């Protein structure tokens, strides 16, 4: 009896799937008005996706980053939407300049196979007055996500097997990472952190003016097997710091007052923390005297803070509840290999 009910349910799902698929063949356009104003209550109000589970979008283009931000091991589905008839402009190795009306969409998923669940989707909307960041929390049924201005906490298990209280950021916390010189801006889609192939396709489809020469310079984070040369190690570590830390630790951003500048392009050792004393680290300093103590990861504040899960000590402050062991290993090795004088 139970078996036949299950079969019926499966048939129903197949039927709904077929309907959804046929609907998808005649694409419903994105709701550009929802991008341009207001705070839509549901993610579906934007019309970015027609297929369930967001594996694919006919309206927005999926992209990956060479070196991604660590978010408790979440699987991230990233999409860029550029409105019809417009194109993004490449600006050297930096952020692609998306036209007004564009949107960047990032969905965070955990779990494998039938256990897989979409947890939250963050959207960045490029409006006349600038970019606006909004967080959406997926419902239990996984049918849609609802606006969660104040953020949320969701219990889940990370791929590493840790049970955590996962934090969905609130609207202000979105901005804390995305603010530069008082304006909200995207972080991820910089030409240096996107593959040439993807940029070429994006340009070919008319969504980007050109593929800049400086593209694709950040190393691909996966896979990093076996021993790396010192050059590669430096490149991994600096890419990691750029992507995971520099959105706050750069002039004009949230942690500018620390004087620490962890951007990829920063060439001054003191600015990236080498023998730099802390300013306002408080107990985050962990009894250590400098951010990076060359040759000695164990006495470097950077390693101490990356190894911690404790609010007030842990870095980054937002966007993760667990230690990124892979990232930490690279930073440890990088500092250990530094010349001591």
């Amino acid at each position, binding site marked *: 009896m139970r078996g036949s009910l299950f079969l019926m349910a499966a048939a129903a799902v197949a039927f709904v799937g077929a309907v959804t698929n046929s609907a998808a063949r005649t694409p419903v356009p994105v709701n550009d008005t929802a991008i341009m104003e207001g705070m839509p209550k549901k993610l579906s109000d934007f019309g970015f996706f027609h297929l369930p589970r967001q594996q694919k979008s006919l309206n927005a283009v999926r992209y990956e980053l060479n070196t991604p931000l660590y978010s408790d091991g979440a699987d991230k589905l990233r999409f860029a939407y550029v409105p019809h008839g417009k194109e993004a402009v490449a600006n050297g190795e930096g952020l692609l300049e998306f036209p007004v009306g564009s949107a960047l969409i990032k969905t965070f998923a955990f779990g494998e196979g039938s256990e897989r669940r979409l947890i939250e989707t963050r959207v960045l909307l490029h409006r006349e007055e600038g970019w606006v960041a909004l967080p959406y929390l997926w419902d239990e049924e996984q049918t849609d996500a609802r606006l969660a201005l104040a953020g949320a906490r969701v219990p889940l298990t990370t791929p590493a097997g840790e049970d955590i209280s996962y934090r969905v950021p609130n609207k*202000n916390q979105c901005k804390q990472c995305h603010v530069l010189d008082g304006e909200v801006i995207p972080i991820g889609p910089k030409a240096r952190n996107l593959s040439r192939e993807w940029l070429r396709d994006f340009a070919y489809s008319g969504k980007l003016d050109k593929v800049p020469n400086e593209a694709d310079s950040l190393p691909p984070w996966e896979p990093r097997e076996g021993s790396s040369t010192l050059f590669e190690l430096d490149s991994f570590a600096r890419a990691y710091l750029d992507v995971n830390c520099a959105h706050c630790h750069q002039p004009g951003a949230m942690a500018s*007052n620390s004087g620490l500048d962890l951007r990829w392009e920063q060439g001054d050792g*003191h600015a990236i923390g080498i023998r730099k004393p802390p300013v306002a680290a*408080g107990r*985050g300093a*962990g009894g250590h005297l400098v951010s990076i103590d060359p040759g000695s990861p164990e006495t470097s504040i950077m390693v101490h803070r990356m190894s911690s899960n404790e*609010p*007030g000590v842990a870095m980054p402050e937002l966007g993760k*509840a667990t230690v990124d062991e892979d990232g930490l290993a690279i930073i440890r090795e990088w500092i250990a290999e530094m010349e001591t004088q």
Partner: protein
Amino acid sequence: MIRSSIAALALASAAPLFAETQRIAPGEGAQERLQEALILAEPGDEIVLEAGRYALTDGLSLDVDGVTVRGAGMDASVLDFTNQAGAGEGLLVTSDNVTLRDFGIENAKGDGIKSKGADQIIYHALRVEWTNGPDANNGAYGIYPVEASNVLVQDSYVRGASDAGIYVGQSENIIVRRNRVVENVAGIEIENSNFAEVTENLATRNTGGILVFDLPGLPKVGGGSVLVARNAVIDNNTDNFAPEGNIVAGVPAGTGVMIMANERVQVRDNALVNNATSHVMLVAYTQDYDDDRYQPRPVEVALSGNIYGSGGSAPDFPGGEMLTAAVGGALPPVLTDGLHQGLNVFDEVPVMTLGLTEVGQSIAEAAPSMWEKPDEFSFNDLEPVSLPAAMEARLK
């Protein structure tokens, strides 16, 4: 849509036309309700925290200009962060013209209240406290405005900060008055800031009462024009409980007022009582630095009209005991490392110098002696700090 055009109108006229009051009560869902109110507030709105205890799990933040957050009193409306699981501070403000008043913040995991780039901010009658008292595991700063113009911190109480109770950093035009700072590492610290007045505060049982510091290598360096006046700086002898690595971890217990680097600092009409190392200490920055903008010495410092009580009997630095014995049981109330430029001590008290001659020189090379006052002093009083009239009006 209608609401946003009203907001635009309100902004244009400076005096909001349709300011709303939103009342928040403690209890179920307080985290979400309060945070949502802070996000959806419009310029001119007031968010009222009804009396009671708010159990919070995440840092709060405000990013809307011109909002007032008002509680029913620093002991009545309490934002309790004892179970905080995320964020670097209890409350973060990133917008201008904000007034925070009449509520308490307890046991934030990082800093208590931080405002960054928030101009014309008022902190009034707040309590920020780590209720277990001095502990290296407490948050760093209680009240922490940074990178701002026009900062007013008044009538507030801060206890237990493992760095500074009230810390104003990389800012200008600052008034810190009538606060009580108790059992912090530094009671009040003005760092890399200009045009500051620290007046009529009670700083007691901290490691150091009031610090005026300037550090190299920060976006804003060159602090100065700081007035420290009419404060009671009493009994600041708590063992330094700052985690090592922080600049305040080097502050000796028993420090009254400490000036490091900075240009033009006036210390006048304070009561300095029972600070066991030194009532007033002047030092140059001691560590290596690479910053052409930076002046490591205290330059043009004036002391006048201060009342000096007992003190200096148990200096908390290596060799202190020997030094004390050599000068008859207590160090003179004013101590300089010798690296100052332009020290004016109008007060009739002896001054000891450690006789250092170069910035960065080891303290082991100190050649202590009594500092001989020059025959003539000259120090022009600092211009009073005035905040925009609209700021003071917000408190009426």
